[in-house]
């Protein structure tokens, strides 16, 4: 394989303009339809992970602030939103969806600045999916009688929602769109390192003239999240994030009568049989682990390749990885952006060190990293065994662990031998083998000859330590509805 033709055809920098984003120096909490200062008086700074430059000051909501938000949500639920007809609620959701589309470029740039992911992804994946989730659920709002929850299902009430930093606005959409469509009101806490797109979403709620209190955004770190999920006024808790925090939340919520859905970690297996379409399998492996720098709970972080095809597949994979372009996330030709935080970078480094110490062989392309910001090169570990930490623990970074198998039975056994069960991919040109394999995998999402494809109509969620409950599709509505008596 030849190296990239930089001498002949080097791509000139093609940065997306930052001018579409008007950052304010400081952001307040969004409670009861208005931006209000935090009673706590505390602030935190959110920074651009690509260069560590501060972007804005954001309020930290304390217990009093969370209480105000939950009270506002309760008032909105009882006063206006819970009683509103589905058709009317749908109109608001359609309006929000359209504004999201109109402001897509601004939100894509903002998300890239705050998160570090490439503009190519925020522009072509995050934002189109965000709008699609609102459009999809807007359509459900007046059809809930047909959601399989009885003739007239009722909303649950006030939803406390806590989301992660890897897809800030998309996770917000996954949480808020179904909750609102079903007639609930929400208090949402975005992640501490990526609060900005949620705060612009609050502006969009104002622009759409959503009744005050239906959506409340409280920013902050772990303490704010604890206050929110522990608040007695919340009827339902929805969390996406790490398994460790998910456990803590499950303990907090246990015995309170609150409903709970958890979408947690994963260690997805990407199974490649020797009859797979190899060039497309390579694309699927790359998108499975390097999409969003591997900050994806359903990432295909374990490659299980049939040993008879391993050498050829890995040669093609390495050649492909050498062509990935790492750098300025705002450059339209960047494939791999920045790691979201110093903390996450340290976790990736620690697990990569453990992989090398435990005897796996590490490979990365010759790829210079920018001097400032948080960066980690695409990395492939071969010679990995089931016992290695890098085969068992979620790395949440651009690190692929390669294992081989001989028989389909072995592939399934290895794929299922993990405490997680969120996603899996299967690559074969033979339909019967595809179905045989998919039937036996214990994972919430199984992709057939593709990976990391999302659709609002498709339910998403996990087995075992990957959590419980589903988001998206008809199944996702169940979390926000009470079965008709």
């Amino acid at each position, binding site marked *: 394989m030849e190296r990239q033709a930089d001498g002949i*055809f080097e*791509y000139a920098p093609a940065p997306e303009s930052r001018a579409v984003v008007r950052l304010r120096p400081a952001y307040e909490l969004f409670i009861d339809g208005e931006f209000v200062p935090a009673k706590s008086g505390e602030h935190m700074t959110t920074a651009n992970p690509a260069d560590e430059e501060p972007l804005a000051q954001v309020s930290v909501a304390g217990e009093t602030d969370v209480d105000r938000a939950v009270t506002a949500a309760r008032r909105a639920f009882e006063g206006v939103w819970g009683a509103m007809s589905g058709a009317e609620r749908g109109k608001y959701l359609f309006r929000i969806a359209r504004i999201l589309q109109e402001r897509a470029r601004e939100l894509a740039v903002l998300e890239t600045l705050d998160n570090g992911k490439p503009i190519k992804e925020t522009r072509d994946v995050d934002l189109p999916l965000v709008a699609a989730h609102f459009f999809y659920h807007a359509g459900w709002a007046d059809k809930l009688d047909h959601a399989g929850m009885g003739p007239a299902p009722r909303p649950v009430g006030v939803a406390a929602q806590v989301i992660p930093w890897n897809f800030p606005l998309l996770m917000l959409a996954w949480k808020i769109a179904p909750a609102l469509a079903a007639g609930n009101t929400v208090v949402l806490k975005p992640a501490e390192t990526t609060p900005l797109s949620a705060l612009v979403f609050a502006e969009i709620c104002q622009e759409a003239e959503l009744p005050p209190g239906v959506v409340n955004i409280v920013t902050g770190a772990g303490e704010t999240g604890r206050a929110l999920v522990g608040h007695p006024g919340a009827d339902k808790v929805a969390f996406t994030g790490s398994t460790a925090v998910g456990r803590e939340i499950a303990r907090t919520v246990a015995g309170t009568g609150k409903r709970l859905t958890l979408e947690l970690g994963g260690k997805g297996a990407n199974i490649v049989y020797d009859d797979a379409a190899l060039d*497309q399998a390579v694309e699927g492996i790359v998108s499975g682990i390097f999409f969003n720098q591997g900050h994806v709970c359903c990432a295909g972080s374990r490659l299980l390749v049939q040993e008879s095809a391993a050498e050829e597949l890995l040669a093609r994979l390495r050649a492909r990885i050498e062509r990935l372009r790492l750098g300025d996330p705002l450059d*339209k*030709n960047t494939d791999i952006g920045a790691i979201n935080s110093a903390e996450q970078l340290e976790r990736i480094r620690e697990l990569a060190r453990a992989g090398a110490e435990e005897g796996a062989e590490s490979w990365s392309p010759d790829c210079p990293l920018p001097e400032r910001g948080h960066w980690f090169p695409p990395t492939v570990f071969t010679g990995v065994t089931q016992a290695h930490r890098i085969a068992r623990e979620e790395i949440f970074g651009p690190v692929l662990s390669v294992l081989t198998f001989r028989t389909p039975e072995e592939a399934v056994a290895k794929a299922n031998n993990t405490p997680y069960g969120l996603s899996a991919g299967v690559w074969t040109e033979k339909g019967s083998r595809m179905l045989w394999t998919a039937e036996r995998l214990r994972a919430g999402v199984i992709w057939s000859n593709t990976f990391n494809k999302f659709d609002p109509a498709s339910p998403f969620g996990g087995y075992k330590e990957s959590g419980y409950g589903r988001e998206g599709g008809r199944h996702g509505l169940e979390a926000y509805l009470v079965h008709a008596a």
Partner: protein
Amino acid sequence: MPETVLPPDPAASNTSLRALLHGLPGVDEVGARARAADLSTRSIKTSAKARAIDLAISMIDLTTLEGADTRGKVRALSAKAVRPDPADPAVPSAAAVCVYSDLVATAAEALAGSGVKVASVATAFPSGRAPLEAKLADTRRAVADGAAEIDMVIDRGAFLAGDYLAVRDEITAVKEACGDAHLKVILETGELATYDNVRRASWLAILAGADFIKTSTGKVAPAATLPVTLIMLEAVRDHYAATGRRVGVKPAGGIRTAKDALKYLVLVNEVAGDGWLDPDHFRLGASSLLNDLLMQRTRLSTGTYPGPDYYTLD
């Protein structure tokens, strides 16, 4: 690369060719389209765009393949290929002028000493439906009249019927008739029905001795597409890795704008690599494309678009 892509026994049979071609890794159509679409979002600006436009101009096979072609038109096209923009000598020449075989002598005379090659379609272009003797006579005459490159069509009927040996033998015979002339083998991918077939036809043509594999005659829709070109580039890449012989690729038909041409160059760059980024290994079969490249070139250097009347009609 592995054994699956090594050349077959020269004394091949239909059975052994079938085993080889059907043993190639499959192509997932959805995935191939997605990869081509993803690469077409690359943003080629400023200095990269300037280089790419000149590179694309130097890769053009400036083509006229009409029943109404005249010697006058071939002379005009030849002059344009040598000096695409009469107002700017810095613009590189096109790679070749591509004509029907009866007009080769005219083109050869017009291009003598210019470095621009004469390419001729042959072998009962575009249908390929003629006796082998006629195809070979057509080829020999074009070469004798001065064609440095022959663009032949494969027998799609035989290919689709599974008679791979007939296709291979015909390519081998034409290659022999070419002598020193380079052979481009047109797969007519618009008639091959599946991407798996495109990959198999690519390998069959390469193994039979093609110097270039070419997508289309331009007379069948769809002509060149990005996914089809992607699959052909993968074939020449894998063949090179297995044998060290670098076969060229030529998408032809339907490439009309500079923007399209740049997408093809990105594909070459990221799928096959820099070894293919020259006119000896990548060509664009086109006619109206050249004027758009010239217009974008002027726009890039002066900041304004000249009107279409500032460029010669083909």
